[in-house]
């Protein structure tokens, strides 16, 4: 630890330090307790929740989870979200990396301007695009399809992906590509065989940022998807909550099911998540 901090801690006094720690523990409780509460609710039946909403479920009703899983369409929602998000991210990485590489390594007159124009679109509120996109998707029979939704996702996430990848490609030493060019490699081959493998860290950032953003995405999905069988997870949660309204135990179990996969991933890869998401943001 740095000496100025150590000095502060010595001078700070025990009481101040204790108060500070308590405050921070309080904040931790504030961030965590809503989830903990929902988890306890998910193990009780509705009558118990109404009578004693804050008791600890000593006799946990795990049946809530099996009930929800087998009577709702959660499995379908997971599959749908997985398809839309997976397709979007796959296209995004290929298309975004290609463009980012061109912006980083093949500058031409106006390329900076095009890059800025693309980047500026992160400011666009979704509602400016919703109406025309709706019509566009109708026209090409992509409305109410997960593929159509995925294509929109690619376009919306592209600026950030290009931004992150461009700054990554710009840092790769030029000699690497030069050497390959001497060996007779074309740009296409250099990109796929040399650049993409090197860019793995940046690509994993893109993967994480977009997984979180698109897995939770709501506004485009709620407008473009209408069929029950095509609902993504957030739409499914809304539907489910509407269906079991008043049945708090099952509702809570449904909410927990919907967030468990992301939380589990976070438990195992928390550092990657934190790093990835903050990289995406600061660069923005």
């Amino acid at each position, binding site marked *: 630890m740095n000496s100025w901090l150590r000095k502060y801690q010595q001078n700070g006094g025990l009481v101040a330090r204790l108060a500070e720690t308590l405050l921070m523990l309080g904040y931790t409780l504030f961030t965590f307790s809503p989830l903990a509460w929902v988890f306890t609710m998910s193990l009780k039946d509705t009558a118990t929740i109404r009578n004693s909403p804050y008791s600890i479920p000593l006799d946990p009703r795990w049946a809530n989870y099996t009930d929800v899983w087998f009577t709702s369409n959660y499995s379908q929602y997971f599959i749908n979200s997985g398809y839309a998000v997976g397709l979007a991210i796959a296209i995004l990485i290929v298309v975004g990396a290609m463009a980012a590489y061109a912006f980083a390594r093949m500058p031409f007159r106006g390329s900076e301007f095009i890059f800025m124009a693309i980047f500026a679109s992160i*400011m666009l509120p979704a509602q400016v695009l919703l109406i025309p996109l709706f019509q566009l998707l109708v026209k090409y029979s992509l409305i109410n399809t997960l593929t159509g939704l995925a294509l929109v996702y690619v*376009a919306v996430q592209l600026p950030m992906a290009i931004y992150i990848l461009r700054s990554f490609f710009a840092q790769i030493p030029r000699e690497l590509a030069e050497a390959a060019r001497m060996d007779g490699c074309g740009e296409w081959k250099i990109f796929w065989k040399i650049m993409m493998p090197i860019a793995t860290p940046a690509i994993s950032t893109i993967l994480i940022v977009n997984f979180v953003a698109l897995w939770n995405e709501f506004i485009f999905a709620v407008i473009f998807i209408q069929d029950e069988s095509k609902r993504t997870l957030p739409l499914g949660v809304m539907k489910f909550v509407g269906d079991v309204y008043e049945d708090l135990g099952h509702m809570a179990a449904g909410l927990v099911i919907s967030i468990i996969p992301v939380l589990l991933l976070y438990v195992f890869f928390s550092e990657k998540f934190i790093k990835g998401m903050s990289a995406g943001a600061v660069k923005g």
Partner: protein
Amino acid sequence: MKSVWKNRKRLRAINTAALFLTPALLFYALFIVFPLLQSLVFGFFKVDILGGEATYHFVGLDNYRAVIDDTVFWQAAKNTLVWAITSPFLEIPVGLLLALYLQRGTRLTKFMRVLWFMPVLLPQIVVGIIWAWIYNSEWGALNQILKTIGLESWMRAWLGHPDTALPALIVVTTWTWIGFNMIILLAAVSSIPKDLLEAARLDGATRVQVLRRVIIPLIRPVIANLMILCFIGKMKVFDLIWATTQGGPMWSTETVATYTVKRAFYWNTFEKGYPSAMATTWFVIIMAISLLITRAMQKKDTLEY
């Protein structure tokens, strides 16, 4: 001879660049530029969509005049602005305090850091439903806490009253985003050279002085970035409201995003000119204010770490 060779080389380079850029430009043109222009144009038309066929009648500025006369739009604009202006002043200072605590690296900090960041990963739909329970008037956690500490007179249906619904929802987005701001600020604070802080301390600066005179000026660009990010994010708030109040009660939590979507897809699903004018107006306002903030904060360089 040489210049021909050079030209040919340059031409080939441009071709390669075009090959790499085309897919991205297609997405950008088709899904961003074209719809954006369409929205701008729609704002000047009465656009009726019946049975998949659209009819257009040029109406000049009528839609924009109607937006200006629309009291609900102004209410929504006011709510959204209140949200977008208060949020940065809640999320960033608290995030900075948390970051300063974590930077000292006690035994608990690693654990706290991971927990504090977590809310960002949850869908706002789920967050909204959970917080609607916390604010529930009969058995919600907030009222229970107030009761326990003897503030029974404060108990109320937090999302059910026009005066408290908007602040209550602002608390929810703050809860979600503080940890995120904290992480970015932590990285910024950690990048400050240690001898600088030590020198300030040795010169007898108090801890608050070090914060005000040394730390904050040094991480100003990061704070500016976060403010813009937070501001733009809140100008677009939609999911949380859709999952909780749906704009009510009495328009008190209506945002421009929710109102536009309602007008475009839920109220009168056939006329698209008016909601387009509304969306365009809001987009221009977001751009203008973002530019103003950037100007005001000037010195905008990005943080690398």
